[in-house]
């Protein structure tokens, strides 16, 4: 029925899609680790980034991979500003409130995009969108292969930022002990905003990697963010390597479920895993503390 080659190819393609899930989850898990909230606006922010890549291509004729370069600082500034001037002040720093503010923000962003772009689905074609790389008998999508490489590099970079820079140390201090960090003179609202900015910057990269093979419409982010939640929970909330491994794993699961159960049921495996992990081990596979 299914030859090993088809199964292997599906698994590898899933692995590469999973890399982009990992990038989306990376931002989400970073924000969770520091602010201790599930950022419901993450999906809508991803949609914003995807539209930005599409506009750069459609209006300026910019290559989607190249568009990542200016988009990363732009998304960082957007995230920084949102946390500093909207989410932080509006939520009074209360965790439950932050959740609701990010939910409100996601509804606003998503529908502003809907008002601007209507509900049409837009795609972007590059010379390499459908290009494949032959690996022995296996044919692998070229853009997805690039995605995998970039996701690994970005995770590494983020890890370096967190572990080797002063800003990163401040972020980790705030994540561990907010009050203590405040006492030793760390500007907590600033650290929150930087973290949020970094999370959004990851979305810029994810958007650039997605657009050559995927499409965008105002509601698309919601679908990705549900998967990203799964990845974050699976990898352990707040864990960067967990997000990378979790993302790759979920990509493979989705791809194989799609192969065996059909496209319409492809995502069910993800959510069943999600529920099972939450119920059995809510700290995730890689998370240590409760």
């Amino acid at each position: 029925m299914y030859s090993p080659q088809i199964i292997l190819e599906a698994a590898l393609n899933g692995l590469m899609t999973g890399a982009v899930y990992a990038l989306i989850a990376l931002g989400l898990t970073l924000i969770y680790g520091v602010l201790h909230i599930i950022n419901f606006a993450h999906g809508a922010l991803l949609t914003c980034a995807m539209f930005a890549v599409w506009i750069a291509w459609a209006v300026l004729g910019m290559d989607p991979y190249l568009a990542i370069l200016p988009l990363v600082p732009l998304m960082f500034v957007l995230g920084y500003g949102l946390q500093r001037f909207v989410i932080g002040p509006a939520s009074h720093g209360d965790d439950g409130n932050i959740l609701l503010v990010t939910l409100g923000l996601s509804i606003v962003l998503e529908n502003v995009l809907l008002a601007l772009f209507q509900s049409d689905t837009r795609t972007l074609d590059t010379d390499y969108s459908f290009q494949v790389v032959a690996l022995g008998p296996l044919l692998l999508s070229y853009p997805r292969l690039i995605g995998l490489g970039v996701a690994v590099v970005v995770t590494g970079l983020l890890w370096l930022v967190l572990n080797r820079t002063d800003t990163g140390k401040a972020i980790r201090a705030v994540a561990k002990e907010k009050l203590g960090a405040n006492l030793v003179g760390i500007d907590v609202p600033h650290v929150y905003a930087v973290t949020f900015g970094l999370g959004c910057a990851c979305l810029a990269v994810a958007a650039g990697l997605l657009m050559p093979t995927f499409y965008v419409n105002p509601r698309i982010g919601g679908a990705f963010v549900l998967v990203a939640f799964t990845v974050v929970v699976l990898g352990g909330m707040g864990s960067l390597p967990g997000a990378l491994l979790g993302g790759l794993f979920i990509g493979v699961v989705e791809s194989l479920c799609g192969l065996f159960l059909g496209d319409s049921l492809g995502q069910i495996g993800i959510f069943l895993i999600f529920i099972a992990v939450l119920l059995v081990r809510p700290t995730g596979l890689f998370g240590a503390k409760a």
Partner: protein
Amino acid sequence: MTARDLIPIAVLTILAALLPLVVTSSPVLNFLVFMLIVALGAQGWNILGGFGGQFSFGHAAFFGTGAYVTAILQLRYGVNAWAGLMLATVAGAVVGWVIGFLSFRSGLRGSYFALVTLAFAEVFRILANAASFTGGAAGLLIKLDVRPANLQFADRTVFYWLVLAFVVAVLLLTRWIQRSRFGAQLVAVRENEDAAKALGVNSLRVKLRAIALSGGVTALSGCLYAQYFLYIDANIAYGSWISVELLLAPIIGGVGTVFGPVVGALTLHGLGEVAKQFAGRIPGIDLIVFGGVLVLAVAFARGGILGLLERLRDRSRRMVTRGPKEVSHAGR
């Protein structure tokens, strides 16, 4: 419950019941019915989320179950719609209990509980969208056959009164919860679960009762939705938007209060309609208002509109008894 508890509900009921005699335009009546259905589902959310403090992001799981059970029973088994309505409510309560049993027993709280409910609703959505039993992606159309036995009425006003009756019944239920021992235990669990346990409250049982009640009420609203619009599909019934809608109303209106969900639903949908009138055919304009109101409510009106009104009332009372000068000191 005392007479004082019941007077506001009675007044609201009479006013709302008389409304169709003044408003006869069909679109306005449609709007009111839809708003009441949302208010009913939101009252369901409020029992668990408001009084119990367990914020579900997946109440679509119950809403959709109510809608699908009633539609499938009628279409495939020819079950009477009223019986279907009762079975749908029970099905919602059972689904609620099962989801609650799985999550609460694992000790899920806060964001984790929100996520797991969201995931359950998503699983239901994917299944309903893929299975042929539920009509798949094409959805289900309830046959138009206008007879009271089918819960279909020639006059829309009758349906309005029916939904209103359910809303009032749930208002009474909520008032009872608020005054009962069960309600007190539920609030205790919300405020500090460990302390409640230490005082001998069986928190798992209390939460399970709350989620079953909550699921039943929300399923009832889903059932009424299907019965009024005579069409459902997976994205309407189990879509994440309905989950958001059902939690917005209590949060905007006043979380953990009896009237909060109704006030919130009325406010949100009222503002949404006004925005549509002003902005014309821009898609999503009403939802932009929803999101904006949510952010503003969290920023400036913790406790929602009812909380805000209460604070204003307290302030004006102090103004009357102590004079405005003193208040400006006391207020700081």
